[in-house]
């Protein structure tokens, strides 16, 4: 026979289950803290810090490969008492683009593919962060890592230029222009790398896809530019089509922007970069691509289940 229990009785009986759990009354660090942690974790991860020794090898090696030519150039400049550095600040990243490409290809999938593959993304979102926090943290981390690998050689060059007592205003101007250009390059490459690698949970496939997009587009664009340039040589007038073809590959986009606004010498075949007017289009294309990559990433992570 069921005895009807009063609420008071239930309360009295349930005490037996109270084994002393206490509610957390400490400080709650919140969303901004979680975002910062994710950022610093991802940034350290891009250089293999906090990961196994094996995964430190490649990023550190690429970092060294980026810096060593700069150090050699500085040494040569100081030793020969040259009047200027053998390479422009803005041109350094263009020359070393293969290394930058390999770095972004190896580290972008590292940043996002493993989370997808081991289905840890829902765990991130069980913390007080939202899609935009995750995307922003990863984007910022990879862009910062890229900025480090591209800006440190410039710092080496600048330091060497100061040691060699080159013209201060000239060098500082070039150095700052170089920094702006690599900052744009870092954002653009990080965006492209992340969008591609967020599409596949397979690390190897992500690496190949990123490098394919970067090198094939560059190969195609520079081949077409060379052909367009050769054509205009035949016609005997200045090249008009060649600079516009540069819109279709990330590195030539950056080249176009810095030729138009940052006083760089274009690496396009024939050395004819876009004019200032055309440069506006290049700059808009770069900013549009960065924003587009951010938008695509937000769309990708809208569904948390994945």
């Amino acid at each position, binding site marked *: 026979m069921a005895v009807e229990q009063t609420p008071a009785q239930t309360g009295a009986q349930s005490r037996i289950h109270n084994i002393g759990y206490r509610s957390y009354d400490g400080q709650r660090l919140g969303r901004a803290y979680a975002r910062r942690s994710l950022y610093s974790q991802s940034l350290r991860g891009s250089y293999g810090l906090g990961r196994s020794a094996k995964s430190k090898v490649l990023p550190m090696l690429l970092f060294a490969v980026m810096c060593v030519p700069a150090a050699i150039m500085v040494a040569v400049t100081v030793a020969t008492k040259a009047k200027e550095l053998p390479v422009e600040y803005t041109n350094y990243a263009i020359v070393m683009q293969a290394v930058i490409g390999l770095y972004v290809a190896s580290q972008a999938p590292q940043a996002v593919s493993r989370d997808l593959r081991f289905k840890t993304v829902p765990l991130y979102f069980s913390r007080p962060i939202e899609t935009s926090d995750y995307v922003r943290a990863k984007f910022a981390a990879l862009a910062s890592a890229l900025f480090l690998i591209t800006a440190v050689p410039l710092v080496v060059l600048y330091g060497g230029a100061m040691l060699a007592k080159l013209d201060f205003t000239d060098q500082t101007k070039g150095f700052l222009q170089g920094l702006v250009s690599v900052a744009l390059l870092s954002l653009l490459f990080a965006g492209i790398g992340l969008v591609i690698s967020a599409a596949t949970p397979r*690390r190897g496939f992500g690496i190949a896809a990123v490098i*394919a997009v970067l*090198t094939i587009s560059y190969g195609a664009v520079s*081949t077409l530019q060379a052909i367009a340039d050769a054509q205009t040589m035949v016609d005997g007038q200045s090249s008009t089509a060649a600079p516009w073809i540069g819109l279709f590959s990330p590195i030539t986009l950056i080249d176009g922007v810095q030729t138009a606004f940052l006083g760089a010498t274009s690496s396009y075949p024939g050395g004819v970069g876009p004019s200032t007017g055309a440069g506006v289009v290049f700059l808009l294309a770069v900013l549009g691509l960065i924003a587009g990559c951010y938008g695509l990433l937000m769309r990708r992570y809208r569904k948390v289940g994945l």
Partner: protein
Amino acid sequence: MYDPTVARLTYRALLGRRRALILGALPLLLIVIAVVVRVLVGADDQTAADLLGGLALATMVPIIGVIAGTGAIGPEIDDGSVVYLLSKPLKRPKIIYTKLIVAIGVTMAFSAVPTFVAGLILNGNGQQVAVSYTVAALVASIAYAALFLLLGTVSRHAVVFGLVYALVWEALFGSLVPGARTLSVQQWALAVGHKVTGGELITSDVSLTTATVLLIAVTVLATWYAGQKLRTLTPTGEE
């Protein structure tokens, strides 16, 4: 020496779902560029040779080779599912042969065929340009697939090392240090392509004998060593 089931699984791993579309995008781009160049420039043998040599053979074939070669075995080792394959009553070298055949087939289909089509579009096979580069691409596909399949069994970072070899060694050092060209699959393939068709526009720094010997040696040794490597494979977890 060939197991249909392993072949089918490898084939599905390489081309299943949307991967075939991504692999197909590269050849499509080559053909689009070929059409654009043909329209802009018209049929020109030198341009055709430059485009096929610079874009198709130097960039596209190695990248497709890396994707197919390492993709045939790398992901399985990476996620540990290779133990289910290894625990079947199949000789390990047999698994490697099968995977190699599939990788070669995929690389050829996605790199040599588009090279031929692009060559035809560019100048209608004038001076045998299309045929010689297609032969070179076919030969290179075999060597690249074997080489990168071996890399896939040896290292977890096979894709990166494969790309470093293809882009840094062959493209960068190859253009700066002449000696590096002797040890480059691309140059060996060019030597074969040059000899087979006798085209004047396709040149190589290596003699045909050296190229053939090295090509065969690399392919055989890489396949043999990959088989040996698979016999003593220790599956590892993610770092």
